[in-house]
């Protein structure tokens, strides 16, 4: 008697879905070209980074990664390990796909930071904005990414840009949240001192709040990179090139080894990024614990 829930009748639901679909279709037909044009610079940027990486001789790239790791950590094991990891990926024939994925992750992270950090600053200053944005951020993190891929593909077609947007939408919330958290956690006494000596709001933000929040900001950037890497396979479904596409092929054809190699490559990149970012975060905090050394390997 009460097992079947009294749903709206099928005709109403169909009409509702049709109305939404047709509305969006009309919107995308009317503005599709304009929106696509608006995102052209983003596409150029992504392609530019990708081609620059692919055009770089591999020894130079290995050296650059080692230098980055050393600069962040001042420890040779991390520098050598990072370069060796990348070399191993090349050895397994994953060089080009790895670089394409790197390009996508770098551009997505840069976008997420460029959008997320200012939003986080604004959120830390205006509690009302925080109440407004929080549900939106929750939605971005929990809505299955396939759902917002549909309108993105309808507007922009299959390709790099909708994939990139999907990655940015997914990777943005931790950047916003951790920026806001880092700013709110800054020692009130130090802020009071800045006020007492007549610092402008701008001087307080750049001279006190952001530097003191930097370790938390770094954690946000790290999270953003990890989330972008987690989206590589999903983004591959709508045409983003890189390590994700062989994984898709592997799923469709049950190529276990192919899937494993590419999957492990994504993990390897994640580990390298994570180590470098954490080591850097540690060095940023060295003024807090002047005696201690980073203890983890």
């Amino acid at each position, binding site marked *: 008697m009460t097992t079947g829930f009294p749903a709206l009748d099928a005709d109403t639901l169909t009409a509702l879905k049709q109305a939404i679909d047709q509305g969006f279709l009309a919107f995308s037909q009317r503005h599709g070209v304009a929106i696509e044009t608006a995102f052209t610079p983003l596409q150029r940027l992504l392609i530019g980074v990708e081609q620059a990486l692919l055009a770089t001789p591999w020894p130079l790239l290995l050296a650059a990664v080692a230098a980055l790791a050393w600069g962040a950590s001042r420890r040779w094991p991390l520098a050598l390990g990072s370069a060796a990891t990348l070399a191993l990926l090349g050895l397994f024939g994953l060089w080009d796909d790895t670089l394409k994925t790197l390009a996508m992750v770098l551009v997505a992270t840069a976008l997420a930071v460029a959008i997320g950090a200012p939003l986080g600053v604004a959120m830390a200053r205006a509690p009302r904005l925080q109440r407004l944005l929080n549900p939106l951020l929750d939605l971005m993190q929990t809505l299955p990414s396939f759902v917002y891929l549909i309108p993105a593909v309808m507007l922009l077609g299959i390709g790099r840009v909708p994939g990139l947007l999907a990655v940015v939408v997914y990777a943005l919330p931790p950047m916003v949240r951790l920026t806001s958290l880092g700013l709110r956690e800054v*020692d009130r*006494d*130090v802020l*009071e*001192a800045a*006020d*007492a*000596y*007549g*610092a*402008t709001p701008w*001087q307080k933000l750049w*001279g*006190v709040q952001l*530097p*003191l929040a930097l370790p938390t900001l770094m954690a946000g950037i790290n999270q953003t990179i990890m989330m972008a890497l987690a989206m590589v396979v999903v983004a591959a479904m709508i045409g983003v090139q890189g390590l994700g596409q062989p994984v898709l092929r592997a799923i469709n054809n049950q190529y276990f080894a192919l899937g494993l190699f590419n999957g492990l490559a994504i993990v390897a990149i994640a580990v390298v990024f994570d180590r470098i970012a954490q080591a850097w975060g540690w060095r940023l905090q060295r*003024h*807090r*614990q*002047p005696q201690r050394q980073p203890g983890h390997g």
Partner: protein
Amino acid sequence: MAEHAPAPAPAPAPAPAPAPALQLQGLGKRYAGAARPALDGVDLQLPAGAISVVMGLSGSGKSTLLRLVNRLVEPSAGRVLCGAVDVTALAAEPLRQWRQQTTAMVFQGYALLPHRNVLQNVAYPLRLRGMPAAEAAGQARQWLQRVGLAGSDVAWPAALSGGMQQRVGLARALAADAPVLLMDEPFAALDPLYRREMQDLLLGLQQQLRKTVVFITHDLDEALRLADHLVLLRDGRVVQQGDPAATVLQPADAQVADFVRGLHRGRLLRCAALAQPGGPVPGAPVLAASATLAEAARAMLDAGSGQANVQAADGSHLGRLTLDAVVRQLAA
């Protein structure tokens, strides 16, 4: 370490800006949701170029009082006048500039910037004003020398002991070159020996700088050592204010009397406070007005005299002092 940079020539002491007097008129503060006001109807005249100590136990509203002076806390009632400036009437931007130019502050928890080294911390108020880095660093270095921290320029604050950190805090406040110095229990977190050293440092600097200092403390000994003008605060109201010795000799009420009973009067009270009118007593020992009662008692006993002549700093006769009056105070 082939060569040391030559020690900078002793800088001409910066001409002390004429320090303004502070007037607090009917000042009150009630925090949102609080049952009773933190401060209520506070009227104070804090003299220019002198150390005014505001003494009270925790919860007396003394920290709030200090922050009302530079409006880190907004008053609910009343006015603050600094010289001719009505601080309470300033809009945000003029207030910020007034703080930059007029006030410096020292905090109980030091409140140094943890991500900047000692020299950068001291130079901070100057950099906020837009002074070029090299010039600010030069001035900061001189102030570090004045507080006894020459050579720790590049240390992180967290690497220093509490006492050293507060020296940095003091150097920062002095580098700001502001005529008004607000000090919020600056030495409360230091151990007693170091506290005394810092008090001496402050007194020595003040002798040259003559700033208008507002000093908050809960320690009566410290208050009496430093104060030119003493204010006692209880439950957000002024209980007594004026000459520090007068507070000990004529307490305003039973509670203040109770409070000052445990003091070591021989060390805290000075001859000037007990001098009686009357011409010089021939043959009696001569005491400086600033001599403590303990010193006075010793001098009179050594001389075998029941009386002494008190002499002002300029050598003029100030009055008579009897051994009897001194002993009464020591026994109080």
